[in-house]
């Protein structure tokens, strides 16, 4: 800021009637407000078990704030010693079938075509898509399974690359959800509630833990461009809900320029942009003093982030330094920006820069019909890059403190939706049980948890609810899911609502 050819010596003033009133009132009001609230903050701090050591966040009498209880709550984080520093969440949108991936059910081979027994279905309501079917013929996986790794885990032939890293994975076969359709189910997984409007996991993490890299967003979203677009995704899945907007997931575009307009337009060298933004910030701060709208602060923060991203993003998305061997590892597509493989590679680079929460979405897993053909394509598009991400993170030592999550929003039915033939069948939505895996920081490697019955219809051992999964993820990041709370419209909200139990058995 030393070079300022047209700097202003006087303080900015808002020359509006509102601004005049503010100028007169400010000193008196601020004094009263800050002294009274400061004492209140001291009193409420103890409510949240604040330890007083909070990095640079601890409230003091000199800098009190209307949100002091909130600050005290945040200052108590982390509640546990974290095992993971970053998360990469590979979301397989559409609901991947557990039968053709990880939940091996050999007993079904003897039951092909038989009607699903009532003793298993127990009168469960089906979706409108298969409820009117005359029969519910049981169908096993058309693909074979083999055992892999030292853990001798059964993996489908569709996932040969994942099978190679099976000893690094912690597979949970007993996930269950409450929603049977895509939108509520994905929203439930990402925000803890079936209805839209709550913050997503990444936003909660960003809100609770802040950033480890001031030059990149804390929460970045990458959506595959090469997926079958069967069910839609929507920005609210990585939305901040009622949290301050700077915690929203930042979606990178799936193409050559992940972030647009980073380069200066022709004829402008950008040298005085920092100065310009400095004045803009001052103006925004005046506005903030006048109206106290917290969104103004967010706007200031986002302008500054955008400015820093002008240099940080080109740096991190630049693949020219990656050797051929890396592209070979991630497989075909990894040189084509926006594909799942390229996104996996980009995710690794973002994690290397300590971006805290990277979420990939890959659509196309909703196979109501033509499942054998379609799931093979889905696996082909994702299997190698997924395994490559694990291998790459592992050899770089990043799996030490990075948590990798793979999974969809629900599972699929044991019975065929539509006509069952020797080579073709479909599967309907099934929220009662499905498989997911986690790998890396703090979870048991080469471990399987939970069991389903012979039809993979009901869970017979160690059920894990979506809220339990969320609680476990938060726990690994050092957060007690019951303690990260945001008060909105008079009600206190959590990611896990009033539920959720940490799944201790999967913790290393």
């Amino acid at each position, binding site marked *: 800021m030393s070079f300022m050819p047209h700097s202003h010596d006087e303080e900015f003033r808002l020359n509006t009637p509102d601004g005049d009133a503010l100028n007169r009132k400010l000193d008196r009001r601020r004094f009263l407000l800050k002294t009274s609230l400061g004492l209140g903050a001291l009193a409420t701090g103890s409510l949240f078990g604040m330890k007083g*050591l909070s990095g*640079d966040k601890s409230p003091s009498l000199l800098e009190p704030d209307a949100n002091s209880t909130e600050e005290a709550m945040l200052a108590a984080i*982390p509640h546990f010693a974290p095992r993971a520093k970053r998360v990469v969440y590979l979301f397989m949108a559409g609901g991947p079938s557990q039968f053709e991936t990880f939940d091996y059910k050999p007993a079904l081979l003897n039951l092909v075509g038989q009607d699903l027994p009532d003793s298993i279905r127990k009168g469960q309501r089906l979706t409108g898509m298969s409820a009117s079917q005359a029969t519910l013929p049981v169908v096993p996986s058309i693909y074979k399974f083999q055992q892999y790794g030292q853990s001798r885990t059964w993996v489908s032939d569709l996932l040969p690359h994942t099978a190679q890293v099976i000893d690094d994975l912690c597979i949970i076969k007993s996930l269950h959800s409450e929603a049977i359709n895509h939108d509520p189910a994905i929203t439930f997984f990402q925000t803890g509630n079936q209805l839209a409007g709550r913050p997503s996991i990444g936003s909660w993490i960003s809100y609770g833990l802040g950033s480890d890299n001031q030059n990149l967003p804390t929460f970045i979203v990458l959506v595959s461009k090469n997926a079958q677009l069967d069910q839609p995704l929507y920005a609210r899945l990585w939305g901040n809900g009622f949290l301050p907007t700077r915690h929203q997931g930042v979606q990178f575009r799936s193409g050559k320029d992940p972030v647009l307009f980073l380069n200066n337009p022709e004829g402008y060298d950008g040298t005085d942009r920092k100065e310009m933004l400095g004045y803009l910030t001052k103006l925004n701060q005046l506005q903030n003093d006048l109206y106290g709208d917290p969104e103004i602060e967010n706007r200031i923060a986002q302008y500054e982030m955008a400015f820093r991203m002008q240099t940080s993003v080109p740096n991190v998305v630049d693949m020219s330094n990656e050797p051929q061997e890396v592209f070979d590892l991630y497989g075909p597509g990894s040189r084509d920006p926006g594909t799942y493989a390229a996104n996996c590679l980009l995710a690794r680079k973002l994690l290397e820069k300590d971006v805290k929460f990277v979420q990939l979405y890959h659509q196309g897993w909703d196979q109501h019909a033509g499942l054998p053909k379609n799931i093979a394509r889905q696996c082909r598009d994702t299997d190698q890059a997924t395994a490559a991400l694990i291998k790459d993170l592992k050899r*770089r030592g990043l799996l030490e403190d990075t948590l990798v999550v793979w999974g969809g929003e629900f599972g699929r039915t044991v019975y065929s939706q539509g006509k069952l033939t020797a080579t073709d069948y479909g599967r309907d939505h099934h929220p009662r049980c499905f498989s997911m895996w986690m790998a890396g920081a703090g979870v048991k490697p080469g471990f399987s948890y939970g069991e389903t019955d012979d039809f993979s219809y009901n869970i017979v051992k160690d059920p894990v609810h979506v809220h339990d999964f969320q609680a476990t993820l938060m726990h690994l990041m050092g957060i007690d899911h019951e303690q990260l709370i945001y008060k909105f419209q008079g009600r206190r909200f959590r990611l896990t609502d009033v539920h959720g139990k940490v799944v201790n058995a999967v913790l290393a």
Partner: protein
Amino acid sequence: MYTAKLLTQYWLNVNDKPGPMIFTDIITFLGRFHPLVVHLPIGFLLMGAVFNVLSYFPNYRFLKDAMSFTLLAGFLAAVAACILGYLLSLSGEYDRQILSQHRLSGILLAILAGILWSMTTALYARFIMISKKIVTALCIALVLLTAYTGHQGGTLTHGSDYLSLETLTYQVREKPVNAEEAMIFEDVILPIFERRCEGCHQKGKRKGRLIVSSHAQLMKGGKHGPVLEPGKPDESELYRRITLDPTHEDFMPTDGKTPLTKSETEMIRWWIENAGAAEGRKLSEVKGYEKMTPLVASLLKLPGARPLPEPGVTTMRAVNAAIPPKTDMATVSILRQKGLTVRVMLHDPVMLDVTMPAKSGVAMSDIEKDLSIVAGNVIWLNLSDNNLTENDLKILKLMSNLEKLRLEKNPVGDRIVDLLSQHQHLEAVNLNGTLLTNSGLARLRRHPSLQRVYTWDTPVTETK
């Protein structure tokens, strides 16, 4: 009374509107005077009865004339106490059975007082002649009724065990000399129930209509039938409730009260299964009691105790006790100002995750002193890609509680091993892209705590 009820119902029904809401508050306010006002009729009526008795003695014959006024005052006070008492009962905070008895006897008391008073008036005497002895008998009845009503009221506010014969006759059981001699129900099981359950499941409260104060009452069960199935703990509602997941709606004890310990639930399970959920049985009388003696001893705090391990909070990993509980946060701020990223991983003890950003240009000599102040608190350290050599890293020796160390992409070689030999908690070291060789790795392999060493892109040739 009926009108009052009607009015209150009206008030209660519309109490979401601001105006009538005030009336329900007034009801509660007035109702709370009941415990005060209630002592007036007690005093007046007792005095009336005393006057009546004393008036038999010639010296006190004049008291006969005071009786009428005293009884009138008592009657009016009793009516007032009834009204206020009714208002208080609307708060619904009382045991309904005792309350209805108290209400009935209170109203009878007021009526009786009114009748007695009318008998003493001149008007009454003009029409009906009544024997003085009958009046005296009625006075005594009135006093007894007052005592009964008062006791019911006391029970409502203080609980049934506040003033009861059981308190008088309660016997403290003598502690058995050893576990074998202990009576399973009387010495072991009942105290558990008294400790954990009796707060709600007792004569006064009877939550779910279950009382755990005696074996007979336990066997009677609660609202939903028997709670104990002798020989079948898994079919016993009581055992099911105390062993559910604490977040389950049916879990007992409810409302965040201290749950039973593993030792206690296990003892109850064994009692139901092997001792037929019976009373009056010595431990040594039951087959296979031997394995239970250490547990019984622990519950009775006798020698030879061995409680069951509590499942407890396994979510918390054991934290290295050597980590200093506090650290100098001013130094942490200085380190941050000097360009390091310092994350607080835990507050108690303070665990720090320190990162020197890649190619930061921060000189180790500049931060060495600051780092040495917080060295014991540094648990994770990331110094990757900062062109550091072993000579820059002497500070590592002070970081005795280090668990994870990242040194990748620095020109360090085998000498780094010497700096790490004293770290007893070191779990993982990242030496990717360094100059580590096979011999350095071989020495690291002998490190007592180290579990993972990353050696990608180094001169190391051996495969993992």
